[in-house]
């Protein structure tokens, strides 16, 4: 479609007569205009994304002072050695993060797919009831995590919270939740599952609506049961969406900050308690740089986090492509 936009003189340039001044001008404008149009975007991205992505690597080798390179002291790989030292708590934060991600990803997929399956329906004309109930599920996702996490702090209050009231109702002993180093992270998980599931559900709903009705009907006619149809027809169609959900949930989970901060008393020393049990790498990074002001050390943490996210995305893509069925 785009090729016919090319003016004839561009194609036959060598044989064409010399261009007139006006044409030369127009050609130059055309060539330059593209660059002019992308310039603002490229400039801002250079300042706040590409530049910092390089700077963070450089910073990690310095005892960084805000004044800049001339005020900072080169320390070589010292920060990376500290990361590996168990006393620094970085490895612990990694294991907290992996625990968190390892539970969040499968839970998000199972619940997201289940809820999407429950709310499936005609793609383009859902009933008012479906529109309403789907909106209810999606609503938490657009709310600021800080505000809703405060509500969850009430719910998880060990003495007067609803969570323990519900447990007591079922005669299960009450839990400490946010004051317990075992249950604080699960409480955060419940909050974030509630908060982010709507997004996954929308993705799965879109995936479900892309499945041609004939495929399901054919399976139905061939005598496949509900489960068989789901397993052998629906799931393969959903594999690209599922791969995307895995990648996005991993990234989201590794960067969770506001909810943990609000639920674990971030205002008092950066959060992540009790006993570092909710100190994910994102919280650890924040505290290193903005509570303890070790910018260089925080930069080293950032580099490792960066590499880890990149590696996980690539691995998931590679593994995923193998098991993904594209139409």
């Amino acid at each position: 479609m785009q090729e016919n936009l090319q003016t004839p003189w561009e194609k036959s340039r060598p044989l064409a007569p010399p261009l007139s001044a006006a044409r030369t001008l127009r050609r130059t404008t055309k060539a330059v205009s593209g660059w002019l149009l992308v310039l603002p975007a490229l400039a801002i991205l250079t300042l706040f994304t590409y530049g910092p992505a390089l700077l963070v690597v450089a910073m990690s080798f310095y005892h960084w002072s805000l004044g800049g390179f001339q005020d900072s002291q080169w320390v070589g790989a010292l920060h990376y050695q500290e990361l590996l030292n168990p006393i620094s708590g970085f490895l612990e934060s990694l294991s907290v993060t992996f625990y968190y991600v390892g539970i969040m990803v499968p839970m998000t997929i199972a619940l997201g797919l289940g809820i999407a399956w429950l709310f499936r329906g005609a793609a383009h004309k859902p009933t008012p009831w479906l529109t309403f109930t789907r909106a209810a599920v999606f609503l938490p996702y657009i709310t600021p995590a800080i505000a809703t996490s405060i509500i969850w702090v009430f719910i998880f209050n060990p003495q007067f919270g609803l969570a323990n009231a519900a447990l007591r109702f079922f005669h299960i002993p009450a839990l400490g939740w946010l004051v317990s180093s075992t249950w604080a992270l699960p409480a955060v998980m419940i909050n974030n599952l509630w908060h982010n599931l709507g997004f996954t559900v929308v993705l799965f709903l879109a995936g479900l609506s892309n499945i041609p009705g004939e495929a399901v009907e054919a399976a139905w006619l061939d005598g496949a049961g509900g489960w068989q149809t789901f397993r052998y027809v629906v799931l393969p169609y959903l594999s690209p969406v599922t791969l995307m959900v895995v990648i996005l949930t991993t990234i989201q989970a590794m960067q969770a900050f506001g909810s943990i901060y609000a639920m674990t008393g971030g205002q008092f020393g950066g959060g992540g308690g009790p006993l570092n049990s909710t100190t994910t790498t994102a919280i650890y990074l924040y505290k290193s740089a903005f509570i303890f002001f070790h910018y260089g050390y925080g930069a080293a943490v950032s580099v490792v986090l960066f590499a880890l996210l990149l590696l996980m995305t690539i691995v998931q893509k590679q593994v995923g492509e193998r098991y993904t069925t594209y139409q």
Partner: protein
Amino acid sequence: MRLGQGKGRRALRTVFQAIVALVFLFPFYWAMVLSVAPKSHVFTLPPDLLPGWDFHPWVQVFQAAPWGLYFLHSVIITGSTIILVLITGACAGYALSLPTFRGREIVFGIFLAALMVPPEAILIPDYVVAYHLHILNSLRGQVLPFAVNVFAIFIFRQFFKTLPSELWDAAQLDGASWWRYLWNLALPLAKPAVATVSLLTFSSQWSQFQWPLIITQGQSARPVEVALSYFQGFDGTHWRELAAASILTLTPIVMVFLLTQRYFVVSVAGRVDDRESSAPMTPLNR
């Protein structure tokens, strides 16, 4: 889809749908209840799901902090970010859709690379950049880093590519420059793209927390979310006031969502089919 038909199963499904919807809505309800519950009813066991009315906490909240100022900050930050994202996105997206733009493949690749950089990983160097630009503790400092969104660029590019080439040919015959074509013809047609980008930018900026937390000190540039967090720090034991403050913060985004709900959900899911960028626009980074 034929699965799960029959009257009984359909009724069962409706019941489950109602339960799930209630579970998701409950925390909002609970916050509202807490904010208007009489003091004696907050700490009762079992919790009282329908206590009486007492609007005292709401009065207290407004007396405790200059919320009007914080809201003004948030509105200015969100509004100007939306405008800037639209400008940078439409311009760059248009350029990337131009067949005459040599090097658009390279530029496209460069933009794509920006998506590989997790915001968390560049938090600290961004702070250093902001420090040297003297935009710490300012509203500008909360707008500039978010003035470009690569997904917005892709959305605009995708849209401009769907415009028929005859439109451009006709505009050229009439002697219009690319700038007039963009401004008078293409952009007015791009209203759906403009709406999508505005909505997603609104929701991500309104929920912004970590960056403003880091770069603002004192009240002069503090947005609502950070103010709420400080309020939680000072008044963590005052449940009713805290619940009222949370609702206050939630209200604008919830209103926008309810008004544009259909469109919102489509915007988020819209990128599923686009293999090129392979990820939907995640409006929120937190």
